[in-house]
């Protein structure tokens, strides 16, 4: 009698336990879907792009003939736009984060700013493009230029930079600040000489993640009206005469890597798909490299920093 009950309970337990292993398998399979997609995407792009991987691809302008079309104007444009983005987003983002973490009093204004940063992160990227089209391109009359694009992407990644910087600043222990105050440092001196240096790694990680997002953004830049066929380079930032630097390039028309890729993808001729794939591989490698650096930095900071 008792034996049979024990048998039954054992049965029940093993039946329930079976679900554990079934779910573990389902979980692994689900992750495999994600990872296999990533793999398939990479392999497909690589195979399709293969015929275009030669030095000329990087040094030629887009062309009507697929074999001769390259990404020169696209990668130059991407580098310049990223420069503007970084120059605008980093100071603004870090300053906002410092204010929110170190200075802000607990009041309704601070609460609004905080909620607002969270909400901005959820705004679709194409809406930033519309904002830029109405504001930068037409109201400020910056035109469809590198400057407009850079500022647009800067606004887009601002929440990423702010959130990352806040986390980095929050990780600096209070004792560091108290030590600085005890020696008579003012608030700003404490922030500048202690808090910010200690959080540089975390901030850098956030900036890299933000820029890696910006580098692949296509929609907002199409919306501000970037041209898809650019067979010239912007003005050089360096000039032979005094003062040796020129900012003329800021207002030049441009194209960027993702737009070039989109342009090639949407062409009916199949030869251009190879160009699109090759551009995609380069774009993907750039993004993955940036993310890899960020992940590495983060893990290093985590393992090294022990307060």
């Amino acid at each position, binding site marked *: 009698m008792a034996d049979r009950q024990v048998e039954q309970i054992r049965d029940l*337990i093993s039946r329930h336990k079976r*679900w*554990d292993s079934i*779910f*573990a398998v389902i*979980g*692994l399979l*689900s*992750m495999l*879907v*994600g990872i296999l997609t*990533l793999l398939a*995407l990479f392999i*497909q792009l690589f195979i399709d792009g293969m015929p275009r991987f030669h030095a000329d691809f990087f040094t030629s302008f887009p062309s009507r003939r697929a074999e001769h079309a390259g990404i020169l104007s696209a990668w130059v444009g991407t580098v310049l736009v990223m420069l503007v983005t970084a120059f605008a987003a*980093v*100071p*603004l983002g870090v*300053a*906002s984060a*410092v*204010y*929110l973490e170190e*200075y*802000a009093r607990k009041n309704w204004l601070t609460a609004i*700013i905080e909620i*607002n940063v969270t*909400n*901005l992160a*959820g*705004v*679709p*990227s*194409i*809406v930033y493009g*519309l*904002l830029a089209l*109405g*504001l930068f391109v*037409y109201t400020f009359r910056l035109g469809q230029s590198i400057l407009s694009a850079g500022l647009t992407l800067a606004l887009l990644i*601002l929440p990423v930079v702010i959130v990352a910087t806040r986390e980095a600043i929050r990780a600096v222990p209070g004792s560091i600040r108290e030590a600085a105050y005890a020696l008579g440092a*003012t608030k700003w001196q404490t922030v500048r000489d202690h808090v910010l240096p200690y959080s*540089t790694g975390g901030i850098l990680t956030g900036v890299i*993640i933000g820029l*890696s*997002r910006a*580098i*692949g*953004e*296509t*929609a907002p830049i199409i*919306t501000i009206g970037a041209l898809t066929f650019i067979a010239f380079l912007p003005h050089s930032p360096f000039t032979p005469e005094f003062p040796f630097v020129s900012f003329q390039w800021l207002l030049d028309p441009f194209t960027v890597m*993702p737009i070039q*890729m*989109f342009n090639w993808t949407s062409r009916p001729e199949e030869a251009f798909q190879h160009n*699109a794939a090759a551009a995609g591989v380069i*774009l*993907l490698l750039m*993004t*993955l490299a940036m*993310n890899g650096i960020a992940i590495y930095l983060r893990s290093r900071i985590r393992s090294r920093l022990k307060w």
Partner: protein
Amino acid sequence: MPFTQPEPRFAGGNDDLARSTVSMNNDQPVLSRKAVQRLRERVIETALFLAALSSVLTTFAIAGVLIYESIPFFQHVSLKEFLTDTQWTPLFDNAHYGIMPLVAGTLVTTGVALLVAIPLGTIIAVYLSEFAPHKVREMVKPFLELLGAVPTVVFGYFALIFVTPLLQKILPNLPGFNMLSAGVVMGVMIVPYVSSVSEDAMHAVPMFIREGSYAMGATRFQTSVRVVVPSAFSGIAAAYILGISRAVGETMVVAIAAGMQPNFTLNPLEPAATITSYIVQVSLGDLPHGSVGYQTIFAAGLTLMLITLGFNIGGYILKKRVREVY
């Protein structure tokens, strides 16, 4: 390592200068140094505050630009026509201004994406949070992060060149442009967002709640599904809302793989335009300031923003209602 200062330093606040005045003359400069320092602190604080305020200004600017640029459109087209007309052909001679075909396209692609992303994302989150050994977790998470970092235009190419032909093997009548393949790829794309946010939520469920469940004889699976998931529900809902916002606002995948023809249908096997891909399509052409095309993309953008806002408010209410306090 000195950090690049975000704001120019106040000219009068040079430490060295202040220090040297003190050493030279002892009675008055002490006071002036303090005053200068106080002033400098105030200026810096104000500058930092203005920087923080810039994000609020961005929000106002978004709302302002979308509304301001849509006004001419709505003077021309009545709200009733906008919401009830079943055709969207603003650039044709016989112009119709019904947003519904675009909204339908957006909802169908979003729906398909969610059908992929929510089950996958939730299962991955439960697995990583409750089942996976530490090593697996550490190994898989970076890969998922990379999946979320792939540029959307690359996903678009992948949908068109790889996924659509694959689906055509199963559904031979599938056209080259269709919402199904765009939606599926979008779904895989947003899995990392859904899984990482819901995993964080499950991770935050205190251990004693699990221990209580185990003590009652529940298995790991029972504990996960009946205890951990309900306890973390508000966080998981937030993850779903994030996924929905991403899917609604996603542009390049649909622009490349779903075709850009407005098509009032709820059938994912057909090609259709979404709100976002319409904006891209118009932007690719010549777009003079103040033209009809120019006005329509802002009206479309406003609609997109309102839909996203609706989902976010819904999520917020849901979160408030079911919030668990430990």
